[in-house]
């Protein structure tokens, strides 16, 4: 049976180089269940080393019709500027559209995670985030997803701001920065995503799940 995953791997690699933009999910679905993990490791290791190859025109047309890719591409079109404040702008826009007060949102958010008694603090942190007084880089994906659920809006993007309210700032930084600056940005990003305490706790000595969810765990 191992020849089967070898053949699948070879087919995947050749499709990659030919601009076929192969989908690992589809290849893994064709593998025997007992060998699926091994093939997954093979494909990941290849992807770690593989060059960038633009999809062929035919494959690009297929991708545009692929709902998963279409959603990802829509994020590119929809997401606002990347500054920490921009996330707050989007949160506020989504909340106002849902006609939910910040107090109510805090209460619902805390309750949804079973954080009873933390409703006020959740509201305060969300308010800080909306106003850009806390870095949005610490907001976890599950917090974003939950907020989107509570506000009845698109999960991944937390709904973009309405065009009229959209900040006109550049989507990306105009200045790519020096290599050192890039290293700093990467290090800051890694720290912000690290589970060890990275953001200062609001109250010394006390960190709870709210900190993990909204300030970076």
């Amino acid at each position, binding site marked *: 049976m191992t020849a089967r995953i070898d053949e699948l791997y070879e087919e995947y690699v050749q499709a990659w180089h030919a601009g076929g933009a192969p989908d690992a999910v589809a290849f893994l679905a064709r593998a025997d269940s007992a060998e699926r993990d091994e093939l997954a490791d093979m494909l990941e290791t290849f992807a770690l*080393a593989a060059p*960038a190859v633009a*999809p062929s025109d035919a494959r690009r047309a297929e991708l545009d019709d692929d709902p998963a890719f279409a959603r990802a*591409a829509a994020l*590119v079109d929809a997401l606002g500027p990347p500054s920490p404040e921009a996330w707050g702008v989007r949160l506020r826009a989504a909340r106002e559209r849902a006609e939910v007060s910040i107090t109510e949102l805090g209460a619902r958010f805390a309750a949804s995670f079973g954080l009873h008694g933390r409703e006020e603090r959740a509201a305060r942190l969300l308010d800080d985030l909306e106003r850009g007084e806390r870095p949005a880089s610490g907001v976890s*994906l599950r917090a974003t997803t939950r907020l989107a659920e509570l506000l009845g809006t698109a999960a991944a993007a937390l709904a973009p701001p309405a065009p009229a309210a959209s900040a006109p700032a550049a989507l990306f930084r105009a200045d790519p920065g020096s290599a050192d600056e890039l290293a700093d940005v990467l290090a800051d990003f*890694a720290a912000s995503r690290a589970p060890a305490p990275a953001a200062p706790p609001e109250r010394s000595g006390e960190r709870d799940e709210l900190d993990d969810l909204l300030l970076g765990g």
Partner: protein
Amino acid sequence: MARPSTDPVARDASSPELRAFVRARRRGDEALMRSTWRDLLASEWSRIRAFAAARRSPALPNGHLTPEEVDELAQAVVVRLIDKLHFEGESIGELRAFLLQATKYAFLDHLRAHIDEDRRRAGSFDDRGDDETPGVGGRLDAEASALVVDTLDRVVDRAVLDEAFAAMDEDKREVFLAMAGGEPAAEIAQRLGISVANVYQRNRRGLVQLQGLLEDQLR
């Protein structure tokens, strides 16, 4: 079709999509950035999907992500790519590093959300385990801790890859690089005077060895 390069990373420096994006970013041309960003996403979509599909954990039913969850994970990676970091690198190596890292973090978020759901359903879900047998939460903590020591800009850049390739056993490296570069197994077998089965075997062993070497770089 032209014969593919036998060096899988030989075209690193010539990703037209990334170059176009970097040029647009330097000029501050928002419209062009949006369009080039979309092209870049298209060219990297397979890599994102491969990283996402490879994730697995005992915390998940059957240990694997469903195709729908892979979709969600890929979306989360794209959000991070655009919104969290506003990617500023200029090389495919940096982009690869970022994508892998973003996938791992997004996966941890996914697992934590999954455990939250278990807790809610079960009422009291002790997921920490003990010193000898860590529970799911304990394993997650260990995995997250391993990520802390990781730095994004050294994960899979060209120098790291070259170092890893150099450390591979020669017979495995030769076959791996040829196959990863797109040379058909049958041609490799003929060129090296070995069987196709042997090509596959060396390739698989090469992949395992390379994976181990790259993981060593992360520690």
